[in-house]
């Protein structure tokens, strides 16, 4: 029998399937993966340090650049943490608009997931379909705040401006389109034999492993753990809506795909309920022009597209935060990459990178 020797293959930081500047040192025995070590830091900008020399309002645009495909969710997390620290009450209408934007952004982010996953699995067509539909959401953001990706729309105390009729009408049209969109995805990818063969039973994360590595978001739910901050904490207006948490069974690549696909429909349901029950009123609380939260600290977490996003803010009573720490879900989730890849073939590593869905802006911070 032929003798084989282990060797290390560097994937990335410039590799099309690592979705950004993630480097993975893959240890191989022939074509089988023995270990996969993520190496990060190529996109480190020191956002936590930068925030220490900015006022609270100036910090918000930096959160857009964390997870830049779901910027609204990051705005929401930071603003809610500051509101908790400074005891600011947000008007109800603003809470509803925030939920609509956060859920739209969740769908847009899952579009990126589906697009890059299908692209990695050899179907460039899939990417075009997902990005075509993502464009519709980015156009909605363009209407509501003039920016497509780095929105900076959710502000401390509410939202930047009231939602226009045009935005509400087009959002309704998009929500009506979602079932047809998902049906089309099912016909193009979900039913595809190659797609299924590549994903079913590969890179399994068991329930125990997912809990051990503190995973969160769709990744832990695909392993069958019912853990969604929207449901647990009911922050903002989420307590008023009725929605389900899609769960997977065995935690393979397939489950991670299906869970996200089902989440798109759930997000659309939440948006529909928010549109139907949208209250009238102001969209901005009375926030002092010079915001000086009292001395102390606050931790607030929200469910962003990738999991549990937490902001820990320390105030020394001045206009600038003394310290900001960001608990980024993709960063913590990446710990599971090693055990996901072990025993798989090198070609399956690409699928594993895609379904764990790390976003380097958030990982490197």
């Amino acid at each position, binding site marked *: 029998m032929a003798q084989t020797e282990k060797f290390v293959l560097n994937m990335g930081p410039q590799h099309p399937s690592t979705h950004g500047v993630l480097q993975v040192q893959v240890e191989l025995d022939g074509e089988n993966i023995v270990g996969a070590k993520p190496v990060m830091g190529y996109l480190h900008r020191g956002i936590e340090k930068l925030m220490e020399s900015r006022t609270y309002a100036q910090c918000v645009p930096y959160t857009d650049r964390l997870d830049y495909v779901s910027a609204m969710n990051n705005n929401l997390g930071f603003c809610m943490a500051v509101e908790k620290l400074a005891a600011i009450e947000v008007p109800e209408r603003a809470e509803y608009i925030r939920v609509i934007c956060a859920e739209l952004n969740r769908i847009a982010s899952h579009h990126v997931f589906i697009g890059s996953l299908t692209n990695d699995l050899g179907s460039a067509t899939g990417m075009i379909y997902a990005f075509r539909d993502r464009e519709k959401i980015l156009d909605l953001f363009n209407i509501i705040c003039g920016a497509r990706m780095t929105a900076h729309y959710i502000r401390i105390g509410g939202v930047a401006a009231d939602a226009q009729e045009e935005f509400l009408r087009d959002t309704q049209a998009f929500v009506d389109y979602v079932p047809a969109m998902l049906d089309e995805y099912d016909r193009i990818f979900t039913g595809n034999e190659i797609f299924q063969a590549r994903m079913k039973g590969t890179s399994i994360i068991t329930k125990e492993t997912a809990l051990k590595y503190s995973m969160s978001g769709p990744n832990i739910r695909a392993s069958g753990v019912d853990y969604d901050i929207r449901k647990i904490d009911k922050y903002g207006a989420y307590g008023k809506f009725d929605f389900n948490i899609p769960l997977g069974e065995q935690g393979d690549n397939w489950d991670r795909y299906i869970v996200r696909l089902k989440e798109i429909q759930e997000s659309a349901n939440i948006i529909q309920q928010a549109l139907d029950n949208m209250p009238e009123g102001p969209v901005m609380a009375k926030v002092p022009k010079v915001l000086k939260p009292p001395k102390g600290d606050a*931790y607030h977490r929200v469910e962003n597209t990738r999991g549990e996003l937490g902001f820990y803010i320390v105030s020394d009573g001045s206009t600038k935060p003394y310290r900001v720490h960001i608990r980024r879900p993709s960063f913590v989730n990446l710990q599971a990459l090693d055990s996901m890849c072990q025993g798989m073939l090198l070609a399956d590593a690409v699928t594993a990178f895609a379904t764990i869905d790390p976003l380097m802006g958030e990982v490197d911070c």
Partner: protein
Amino acid sequence: MGTYFSKEKLDLLKAQFDTAEYDAEQAEPAIYIGKEQLLDLMKVLRETPTYAFDRMSCLTAVDYKEYYEMVYCLYSRRYDLWVTVKVKLDHDNPEVESMTQIWEGTNFEERETYDLMGIKFLNHPDLRRILLPDNYEAHPLQKDFVPLEPRVEGGVLTWHKPKNLS
């Protein structure tokens, strides 16, 4: 956000650990503990069936100039319960037991805290820098941090303390 650890429970812990303290005037007081007893306290929080803190939601450190403070936000999925544990560390030699001995998922977060804040974690399986270059010799989140200057020496990017410009 769930319920916070009640004062009765805090008193129970205070009776069990002589270095445990909390500020009774705050609505949601953090437990302060001496660093020698930290690991034992965390084991109690994790393993007592009526607490069952199975998630380390946030692990970070703050530089207060005279001392460092480690901050641990724990969450119990079973009881929807929160608690914050804080430890003060000596500014000259910040060392603390690694929480990977109890929650394996804190590995990367501790490496990040080591990298950016310079806290050394004892008994950590793989304490290396995670975001900054391996040959970088400063910890940016410290309050007296001065950015290092990059220079290429012999084809390798190296980092140096800035020369005094004044």
